């Protein structure tokens, strides 16, 4: 029989997360009961709101796009042993990149300005991650502290820019002019209509595919390139990396910049495609939820895609729920998300010892009976 401490893969990455999810949902249901609502009805509304009609699906995937970018950002850094909590600020700065391109080159053809805008969001996000990365690599300043600080600096900087510099004259709103129509990224319902398919209007747009592409790109980067090999070596064992002649400074700086670039691309979805302008605090917490998404997705692109969609469902379904049942407030949705994060992340291994017991008892029971049959 195999090792006592291990479980088959299907239990480890399939059944255990499912049990955790069920527990999170059960406790959420109990809370719903306490406030006097019917949990089954609530679940029904939530799921219908997220997946039951076209517009709902559109919104779910639109939110999932944001979570994909920020979740991938956290995961990439994690593989190098870095904890990038600065997704929020990096995304915010990404928006600045988008605005600079889209406002300054209004007459460029879409095939030029859209790639330029995407590159600008990535570049500005990377730039904002570069400083903490440099400080970590050369000075040893811990990236958790510096990236948190950089979120605050980004917030102040962007408020200043949006109020005093970027907002058009004569307005008192902290947002920019509308971006040039050339930089419009096609919405999903528009694209489907080109093929004669009717789909209700929603903010879901091509950025979703960009995010999926990034997920695939991340897989290639981490598991199929020389650099990814260096990243994982550094992440697992810095001393082995030194032994192998891998420059930790180089790995830290490049990985953090890639992480920042991914977070920055959140602005492609939020600013370039949907708002079509830069609005104050557009990154609105997506950066932080990215940490939970990466955690839940176990820092693997496939897991992150699934986790992003789950969070998309919670966001969209939750919004519908708050609308349908006023006693269930927005905070209630945050509570459910919190429970899911708690069970999937912090308590990830809570049920593992139980599972180990159950599995090995069952397995040995089986082998016992087979012995009995043989004799």
């Amino acid at each position, binding site marked *: 029989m195999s*090792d006592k401490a291990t479980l088959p893969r299907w239990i480890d990455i399939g059944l255990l997360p499912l049990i955790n999810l069920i527990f999170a949902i059960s406790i959420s249901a109990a809370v719903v009961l306490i406030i006097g609502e019917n949990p089954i009805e609530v679940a029904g509304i939530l799921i219908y709101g997220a997946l039951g009609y076209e517009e709902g699906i559109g919104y779910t995937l639109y939110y999932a796009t944001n979570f994909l970018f920020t979740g991938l950002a956290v995961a990439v850094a994690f593989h190098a042993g870095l904890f990038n909590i600065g997704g929020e600020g990096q995304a915010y700065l990404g928006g600045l990149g988008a605005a600079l391109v889209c406002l300054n080159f209004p007459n460029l053809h879409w095939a030029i300005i859209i790639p330029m805008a995407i590159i600008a969001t990535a570049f500005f996000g990377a730039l904002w991650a570069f400083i903490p990365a440099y400080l970590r690599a050369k000075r040893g300043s811990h990236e958790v502290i510096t990236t948190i600080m950089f979120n605050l600096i980004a917030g102040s900087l962007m408020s200043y820019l949006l109020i005093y510099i970027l907002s058009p004259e004569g307005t008192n709103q902290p947002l920019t002019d509308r971006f040039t129509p050339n930089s419009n990224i096609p919405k999903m319902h528009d694209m489907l209509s080109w093929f004669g398919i009717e789909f209700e209007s929603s903010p879901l747009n091509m950025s979703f595919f960009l995010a999926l592409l990034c997920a695939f790109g991340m897989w290639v980067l981490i598991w*199929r390139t*020389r650099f990814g090999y260096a990243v994982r070596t550094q992440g*697992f*064992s810095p001393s*082995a990396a030194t032994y*192998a*002649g891998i420059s930790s400074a180089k790995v830290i700086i490049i990985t953090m910049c890639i992480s920042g670039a991914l977070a920055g691309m959140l602005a492609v979805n939020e600013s370039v495609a949907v708002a079509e302008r830069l609005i104050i605090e557009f990154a609105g917490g997506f950066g932080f939820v990215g940490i939970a998404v990466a955690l839940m997705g176990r820092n693997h692109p496939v897991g992150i895609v699934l986790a992003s969609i789950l969070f998309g469902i919670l966001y969209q379904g939750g919004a519908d729920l708050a609308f349908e049942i006023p006693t269930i407030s927005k905070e209630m949705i945050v509570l459910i998300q919190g429970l899911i994060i708690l069970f999937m992340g912090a308590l990830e291994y809570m049920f593992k010892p139980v599972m180990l017991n159950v599995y090995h008892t069952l397995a040995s029971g089986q082998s016992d009976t087979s012995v009995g049959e043989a004799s």
Partner: protein
Amino acid sequence: MTDQVDFAIELKNISKSFGAVQANKNIHLKVEKGTIHGIVGENGAGKSTLMSILYGFYKADQGEIFVNGKLTQIHNSKEAIAAGIGMVHQHFMLVENFTILENVILGAEGGQMLAKGEGHAREELARLQKDYGLTVDPDAIVEDVSVGQQQRVEILKALYRGAEILILDEPTGVLTPKEVDQLFAILLQLKEQGTTIIMITHKLREIMHITDNVSVMRRGEIIADRVTKNTNPQELAELMVGRSVLLKVDKGPAEPKEKLLEIKGLEYVDEQGVKRIKGVDLHVRAGEILGIAGVSGNGQSLMLEIIAGITKASKGEMLIKGKPVDIVKGVDAGQIRDMDVAHVPEDRHEMGLVLQFEEWENSILGYHNDPKYSNGQILKPGVIRQDARDMMEKFDIRPRNERLTSAKFSGGNQQKIVIAREINSDPDILLIGQPTRGVDIGAIEYIHNQIVAMRDAGKAVLLVSVELDEILSLSDRTIVMFDGNISGERITSETNDGDLGLLMAGIDSQQQDATNKGAQ
């Protein structure tokens, strides 16, 4: 009964295993009250484990502990202190940014309000200082005072808690010679006042100098108890090292050729400002195995890391195949590897392998930039896995599954993964540290033969090992390191374990003979 001796400590039949490793085996030990009792042995002989059992860090699998003749259960350090046992660890356990006084009363503050306890402690410290010559400034911050002073704080901590039996684990390892003298003066004074002292060390000179009795440990057992004045370093060295049968390696005479690796004036000063390597010169020729023996911690491991490009030297020059390499400004391990130097590191878990990787991923660690393994940035997993499978076949790595996580291989097979990778890179110079640490007998023989095969193929091999047997059976020339210096060099075929054992303790018998003859 006038010859009745009082024993402060009596251990009966103590055994302790960690997994499959038996760290202590049926230990019987008697420590007379009011004496200094030395415990010597090589690294890994089980000395520290035994003391940890006595101090309540580990629980023995079996056996009994008598303190002052009374059967005592010691489950944790609190109970050890209650029984009057104090311990000074090799690595101090002090709060660096507290004052000495605060450190002394830590855990024995005497109530919620510090002022009262501090007042009492101040008086008590003054008394201890007067009685034992343990002078310290109670208001100095610990990180500002010297290592010797910090050690005094540790001793004071134990005495403050009423320790009558003091265990010192390698107390002189971090001290300067002058501080060692001061420490010994204090220990003698403590003994005078009736304190019993157990001192763990591997330095035979210190044993001879200060102890009354000495017990020798080897491979988890106490193999000899001696009254210090009735023994000599030669005997202790032989006991420590053991006269076990050498693992014979089938090897012909070496045919050394040109110098491939040369080091001149190598020095290393660590972060605390302690000189760990004090000017070492050596060379390794093509077609020879140079063995570096020594009790671990005498600079040989550091030297290996410096040569491999992992640690920067403070001073010195290195020539690889006649080409100078700047080891002070620093080269990285990759650059050294590019000069056809392969390195089997001492610690395969820390350096040689990434345990979370699958075996095939570890088969390119350090060689991942080799053009044959990638197409630009994109790795070629097919090629890498094929190479990994070939290596597994050639070096008999079991199980033959390159997709298995490296942590799941046995110690011997993990070591083979590293050695296979390094030998497979076809280096001109092979650096190899503790090649058979934690490796089973079968694999040892195989690894030894591989090392000899490298030599016969005209490679220069630098072997660092704490196993004397290994050095004696493999190397053609042997250098012994002691306290950051080379304490002697021998043609291996013209020396023996006793001679090397003495060199490991810093005593060169050949030179002594020479001076004796000179005097006559």
